[in-house]
């Protein structure tokens, strides 16, 4: 029974512009795979998409409990979209815990598909509930579809060589098959994926394919639906070849690409930490790209080894999240003093301290810009979406190499784990910025702290004959780099380092405004608020509101031209997932403008409607 049947052909087919589905189940239920397979198929069909995986707390909680719930939200669309959607239209709930944790997010009138096979009294109790949400009114106002998926999978896989436990593991593919039917999607991509994935265990591939097909073919369930749905391909996507990419993948690939564009190889020194770990993991698998990866004993050793790697002529990279970032502070100061290239990736998460390790936040901005002892300027750039993280990683490499400086690249948990289609770049069209190693002393002698037109000092790696010299963290005499305690030299060097970083501004464009060049409101964003802001501004403009937006990639130094742009709007709104950190920076830099800060610090991205409400309120002032 791995053939699809044309069940429900009699049902009317409804067109939707976009749909949001959330798969929710126990950590062991495979919801992340279900979600990503659905995403993958939608991508192949040409939908635009955005996803939002929501992991449970780090430890696998006991099965069936609320802390053990794992969710994956996917939005697929026939038009351009920027967020995974404020509220799911469809919720798939594999057990009571999944239902109760997620139901409050479901759009009014939305469909909730419930696996009744997991709703025994015991299951309700495990979820910590007093009453069964199926019957206690929890689902009032929603369209409830009840299916005993446990039983159906069992029956679909009767005679399978798998153990009953393993049979039950196929539940997620049954569910996926059902959703494929509902949204008129083909099974082939997932079947191909299963065959590939379980190449060495064909009985597992078989079972999952059977479950998938059974879900697709389950005529009796489908009677419960009043229609099948279709979401046409997105026609506004730029032509090109696409693949889905998460932010962490994009950073990893971007770093390899950035290094190659500089004629370098990546040296990554890192220490695992949620949600940054997979960048290290991915780079560790790129050894054939010449990547040298080093899992250090801690974050301090990680960054120090990366500085050592740069000193030896690699592009040193270190990746981490907030608490690890804190630990790297001292070594960043040394990198500033040594003036060597270095890319520091901070995938922000909820804090302070250990905080909410699996949740997103944007609250490391001030730390990134100002959080070091003494005057230790470091440029900071921030990725706004998963695919943008690729461009930002390349840009970080460019700045690091051209300016001989550490660079901080900010991402966050939302970007790291979220996926979106990435239009693959044409390798030959990427800008190159080859590293210039000094290998012979120039006329007049070699000076380790001489500077080029970008104020960058020469990069000389050990092993270069005749240019032996010593560098360190004590203040250096201008040009010679010898230790110097001279007061005027110190001031000169402090200002030189500041000027070098400020000078990066000359190499970055003024960000463009989306919307009118003047108006009632400008929304200024940075980082992963991008999607919510873009959606909200589209909606606002659709309503005729004179709202524009501008998104900052370079948060330090800030690009030129902002002051003039800001002057063209009656009000400026800064939504941030922190208590107003960019707003603070902008206030101090552009004192003549008022910046209205709008904060949300919940470990979650802004909902589009939240921003639209704010916009409405501001314009009504």
């Amino acid at each position, binding site marked *: 029974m791995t053939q699809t049947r044309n069940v429900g052909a009699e049902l009317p087919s409804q067109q939707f512009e976009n749909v949001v589905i959330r798969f929710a189940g126990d950590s062991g239920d495979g919801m992340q795979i279900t979600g990503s397979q659905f995403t993958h198929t939608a*991508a*192949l069909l*040409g939908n635009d998409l955005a996803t939002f995986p929501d992991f449970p707390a780090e430890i696998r909680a006991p099965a069936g409990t609320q802390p053990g719930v794992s969710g994956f939200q996917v939005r697929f669309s026939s038009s351009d979209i920027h967020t995974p959607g404020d509220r799911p239209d469809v919720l798939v709930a594999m057990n009571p815990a999944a239902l109760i944790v997620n139901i409050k997010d479901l759009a009014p009138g939305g469909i909730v598909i419930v696996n009744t096979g997991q709703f025994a009294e015991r299951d309700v109790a495990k979820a910590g509930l007093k009453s069964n949400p199926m019957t206690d009114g929890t689902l009032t106002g929603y369209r409830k579809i009840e299916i005993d998926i446990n039983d159906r999978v069992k029956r679909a896989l009767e005679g399978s060589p798998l153990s009953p436990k393993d049979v039950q593991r196929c539940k997620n593919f049954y569910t996926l098959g059902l959703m494929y039917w509902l949204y008129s999607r083909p099974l082939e*991509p997932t079947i191909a*994926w299963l065959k590939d994935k379980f190449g060495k265990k064909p009985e597992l591939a078989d079972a999952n394919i059977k479950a998938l097909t059974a879900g697709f073919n389950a005529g009796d369930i489908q009677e419960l639906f009043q229609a099948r749905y279709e979401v046409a391909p997105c026609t506004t*996507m730029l*032509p*090109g*070849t*696409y*693949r*889905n990419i998460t932010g962490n993948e994009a950073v990893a*690939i971007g770093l*390899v*690409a950035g290094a*190659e564009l500089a004629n370098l190889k990546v040296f990554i*020194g890192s220490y695992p930490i949620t949600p940054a770990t997979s960048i290290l993991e991915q780079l560790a698998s790129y*050894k*054939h*790209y*010449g990547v*040298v990866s*080093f899992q*250090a*004993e*801690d974050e*301090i*050793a*990680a960054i*120090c*080894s*990366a*500085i*050592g*790697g*740069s*000193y*030896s*002529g*690699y592009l*040193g990279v270190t990746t981490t999240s907030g608490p690890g970032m804190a630990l790297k502070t*001292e*070594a960043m100061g*040394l990198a500033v003093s040594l003036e060597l290239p270095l890319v520091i990736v901070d995938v922000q998460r909820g804090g302070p301290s250990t905080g909410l390790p699996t949740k997103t936040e944007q609250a490391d901005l001030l730390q990134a810009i100002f959080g070091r002892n003494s005057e230790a300027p470091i440029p900071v750039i921030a990725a706004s979406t998963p695919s943008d993280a690729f461009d930002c990683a390349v840009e970080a490499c460019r700045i690091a190499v051209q300016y001989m400086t550490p660079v901080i690249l900010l991402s966050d948990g939302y970007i790291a784990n979220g996926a979106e289609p990435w*239009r*693959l770049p044409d*390798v030959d069209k990427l800008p190159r910025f080859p590293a210039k190693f000094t290998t*012979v002393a120039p006329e007049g002698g070699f000076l380790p702290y001489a500077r080029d037109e970008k104020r960058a000092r020469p990069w000389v*790696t*050990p*092993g270069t*004959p*005749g240019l*032996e*010299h*010593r560098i*360190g*963290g004590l203040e250096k005499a201008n040009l010679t780099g*010898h*230790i110097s305690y001279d007061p005027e030299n110190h001031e000169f060097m402090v200002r030189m380092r500041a000027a070098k970083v400020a000078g990066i501004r000359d190499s970055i464009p003024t960000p463009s405004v989306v919307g009118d060049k003047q108006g009632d409101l400008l929304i200024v964003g940075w980082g992963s608020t991008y999607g919510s802001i873009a959606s909200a501004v589209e909606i606002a403009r659709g309503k005729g509101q004179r709202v524009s937006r501008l998104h900052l990639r370079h948060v330090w130094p800030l690009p030129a031209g902002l002051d003039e742009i800001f002057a063209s709007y009656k009000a400026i709104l800064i939504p941030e997932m922190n208590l107003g950190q960019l707003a603070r920076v902008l206030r101090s830099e552009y004192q003549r403008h008022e910046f209205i800060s709008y904060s949300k610090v919940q470990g979650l991205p802004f909902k589009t409607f939240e921003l639209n409400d704010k916009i409405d309120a501001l314009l009504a002032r």
Partner: protein
Amino acid sequence: MAETQALTKKDLKSDQDVRWCPGCGDYSILNSAQGVLAGLGIPRHQMVFVSGIGCSSRFPYYMNTYGMHSIHGRAPAFATGIKLANPELTVWLVTGDGDGLSIGGNHMAHILRRNVDVKILLFNNEIYGLTKGQYSPTSRTGLKTKTSPMGSVDRPFNPVSFALGCGATFVARTIDTHLKHMEATLAAAAAHKGSALVEIYQNCVIFNDGTFDAIADKTLRDDKTIDLEPGKPLVFGKGRDKGLKVEGFDVRMVPAESADVWRADTRSAGPAFVMSQLDSDPTMPRPIGVFRSVAAPIFNEGVRAQVSDAVARKGAGKLRDLFYTGDMWDVR
């Protein structure tokens, strides 16, 4: 421009004035190191000296090689990065008892565990010199310093035991005033493939003067120390008349003729550790020389071999393949 002639000591002196206190033990170590390094047949530009912070950590400035004076305690991490990124380099690390065993103890432990091919000189003066005399993790219990006015209550590390506990593949000890021994020991370290830790008893004339006198004094040291020479009997004393022998779990003093032959390359680091523990026995000579010297896989080689293997097996990665992979689709 590559240097083809043999180097002299002088070639390794940088143009910077040496700024240790007059009489500091660091001078003789610098001098010995320059001598040994000059004799290795390695060109200057292939040498890198890495250090942390401390009096001892000023060392790189005085070497006419590449050098990095990094931050307190982290030199092993820098050295690891340097060596991984360019395994051709000869990397030496200079640290102190504070830099290397207090704030930097963990990095020290891990570089030794991994067996990164870096030679480590631990200047042990049992004090924080640069910050003007506080007790260190090797200071003896009871030492009165500004931060321990009633005497330190810390139990000191035994750096050799510590290194052995970390799985170090080469561990030795020498004395700043014992030039011949120091040069031989540094040469042995240089010859070792993998991490080599040399603890050097170093006198801080200002803040801890004479702390090693009872064993290191020239008139005493023959009787108060025993030189562990791999393959040679465990014999010591002015008249080379005394020896050591292991019996059960114990080490006993015996006439030279009955001494055991020293082996530093046993599977187990037990023998070396047993010797290191003699330190706490005042009736026993203090072992110096080579406690352990054993071949083991070298971290930087392992890491680089995987890179080469990956390239060999998958072909050198092309950017296009990095992008165009996995499930793709076209939009027209």
